[in-house]
């Protein structure tokens, strides 16, 4: 051994700080003679010389950090016998392993997750050498977004650099915050859990004589439908596989704001008069803009209305957010050609989309709910 490299002095330590040299260049040392004290994350330890010899060079001074497997001491190479005795000692290319030889190779190792006993056929791993993986980590590039160009679909270092450049040109990743972040998490959760089915239909509102408040009519229709099909006004517990049918209708109303999607809740909506309801909704909108809605008014709903028609769109597949089991979406009111008693007429219609969680609600219940809502909506007032 001509170069003595810093071994791993603990269990997986990456580096050590030189505390004090006990020898200087040119000194003769004996095997096992203490030559340096170093401080690791775990301990202050004395390191002995691995061999007899003369010190040619010390790598670093007190206070310097030496990485594990980097040179620590160089010995004057005056004889070869010392080296030949070190067959167990780590080879010149050693990586600082404490348990013996660490094979070095350019062979690509593709890792894949596997369970004990499984055949482990699925290969989710991305093929890249450790140095390429390290480069990707340094450049903050996710291996999964890289299209590999190397042999056997290997990701090369130029692949990493190419993608890093693209990402730099596009700009920094914007980490979602606040309401938008809450939306992302809530929707991911809902998508992973709910078994959604969406039914579409239209309510013919040609009979509406005077101008009506569509939102209020939609709410009234939902309350009426909940009375007839209470299974949709419920909370589902996926852990216990159970449901709670709720007597009162606590209506969540999806509201689009510049900050993101809010779902404020109007408790016991069935007990509130139309005029009070409109007042409350207006107040809610102002409060949302000021971000002054109290937290308890943003939770506890039993069913949801998403009246997106004011913005645009016709049908949708609204997302049911657990523990609720149903959401009604309403698109833009539009005049349509419809067949009435065998005659073609033009009537105004509201396109409706009802999504329900099929774990808690049957298709029949949902269809009857939608029919009940349409029946109420189609009343003149």
């Amino acid at each position, binding site marked *: 051994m001509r170069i003595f490299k810093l*071994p791993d002095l603990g269990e997986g330590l990456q580096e050590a700080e030189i505390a004090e040299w006990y020898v200087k260049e040119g000194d003769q040392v004996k095997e096992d003679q203490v030559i340096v004290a170093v401080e690791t994350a775990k301990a202050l330890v004395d390191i002995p010389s691995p061999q007899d010899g003369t010190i040619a060079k010390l790598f670093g001074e007190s206070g310097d950090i030496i990485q594990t497997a980097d040179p620590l001491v160089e010995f004057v190479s005056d004889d070869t016998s010392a080296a030949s005795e070190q067959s167990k000692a780590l080879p010149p290319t050693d990586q600082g392993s*404490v348990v013996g030889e660490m094979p070095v190779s350019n062979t690509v190792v593709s890792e894949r997750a596997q369970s004990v006993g499984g055949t482990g056929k699925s290969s989710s791993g991305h093929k890249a050498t450790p140095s390429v993986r390290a480069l990707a980590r340094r450049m903050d590039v996710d291996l999964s977004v890289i299209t590999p160009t190397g042999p056997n679909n290997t990701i090369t270092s130029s692949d990493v650099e190419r993608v890093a450049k693209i990402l730099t040109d596009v700009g920094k990743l914007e980490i979602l915050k606040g309401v938008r972040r809450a939306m992302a998490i809530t929707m991911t959760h809902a998508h992973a859990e709910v078994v959604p089915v969406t039914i579409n239909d239209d309510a013919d509102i040609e009979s509406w004589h005077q101008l009506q408040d569509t939102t209020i009519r939609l709410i009234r229709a939902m309350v009426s439908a909940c009375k007839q099909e209470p299974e949709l006004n419920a909370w589902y517990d996926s852990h216990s596989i159970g449901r709670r049918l709720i007597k009162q209708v606590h209506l969540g109303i999806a509201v689009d704001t510049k900050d993101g999607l809010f779902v404020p809740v109007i408790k016991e909506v069935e007990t509130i008069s139309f005029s009070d309801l409109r007042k409350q909704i207006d107040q809610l909108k102002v409060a949302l803009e000021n971000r002054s809605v109290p937290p308890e008014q943003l939770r506890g709903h039993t069913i949801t209305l998403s009246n997106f028609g004011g913005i645009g769109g016709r049908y949708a597949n609204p997302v049911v957010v657990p523990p609720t089991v149903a959401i009604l979406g309403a698109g833009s009111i539009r005049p349509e050609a419809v067949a009435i008693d065998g005659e073609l007429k033009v009537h105004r219609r509201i396109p409706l989309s009802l999504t329900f969680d099929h774990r808690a609600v049957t298709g029949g219940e949902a269809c009857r709910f939608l029919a009940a809502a349409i029946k109420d909506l189609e009343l003149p007032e």
Partner: protein
Amino acid sequence: MGVYDNLNIPYSQYLDHHGQLHETCSDYTSDAKNLINFYKIMLRTRVFDQKAINLQRTGKLGTYASSLGQEAIGVALGAAMHANDVLAPTYRDYAVQLSRGIKMSDLLLYWGGDERGMDYEFSREDLPICVPIATHTCHAVGIAYAMKLRKQPRVMVCIIGDGATSKGDFYEALNAAGVWQLPVIFIINNNQWAISLPRDKQSATKTLAQKAVAAEIYAEQVDGNDVIACYERMHEFIERARTGGGPCLLEAISYRLSDHTTADDAQRYRSPADVEAQWQFDPISRLKTYLLENQFIDAEALDALQKQAEQEVEEQVKIYLNTATQPPEAMFDYLYETLPEALQSQRDEVMRKGKKHE
């Protein structure tokens, strides 16, 4: 005043820390040949120990647990046990293992990550080093049960540390050994430290030995730095168990003069001055004083023993360093007689990958 101050756990010491003999009730105090042999194995253990640390510090060995200052317990035990008795050691018991013929090169292989180190040439029925704390107390009970069932005149010996006496395994093992009257001896090497936890924070009991009382197991304390007292008490306990006297427990009081392992720095939790003060109780120097003062040996012969130990260590290190490393699939080969299906497929995979690396 403690609740159980009147338990009266006997404590033995013959050779005090000045190397002076207090009682002569033991025949072994005048047996020069045996005492020199004790000294020799303690010395071999200590020289081996220092070299193993140096090997770790220069990247040639994995993490290593030093036995510095606790050599007397193992040496005495090695002499008290018969060759066909069985030992369940922990990871600091090189003195007893060397006494029982286990080779230094094997111990180095073990700490170098090579399972062949536990495939002893001698004392082949001794258990491998047990790193988990106190789990081997239950193994020892099982083996002692087998000895009793087969009506063999053999004794099972299990060594644990002070920390192990806080484990459930230990209490369970004691209970079973007591109720079944098994030929098993529990030796507690109470070196005062369970990694960084000192003895007084380990257990409220005045002695660790008295934990045996609840299992109706006879227990004593002994000065673990006095090799003569250790041998005398161990010999008596083991022979009693061999002749159907049932289990016993011996708490040997020592001190861990070293770090817990090479991955530890004891200065972070105990002062160097406290450790320095403990060196006066060192088991090797007190026996050396006794041997010299009674002219059982002279300084020249002691020097020769030192050189002999160094030479042996050097040769054993060479054997270790020249042992070819095992292929990666060897990691599967020492746990099961027949490898389970799931591990077999993993082994095959490792072999395929290993070939690619060649």
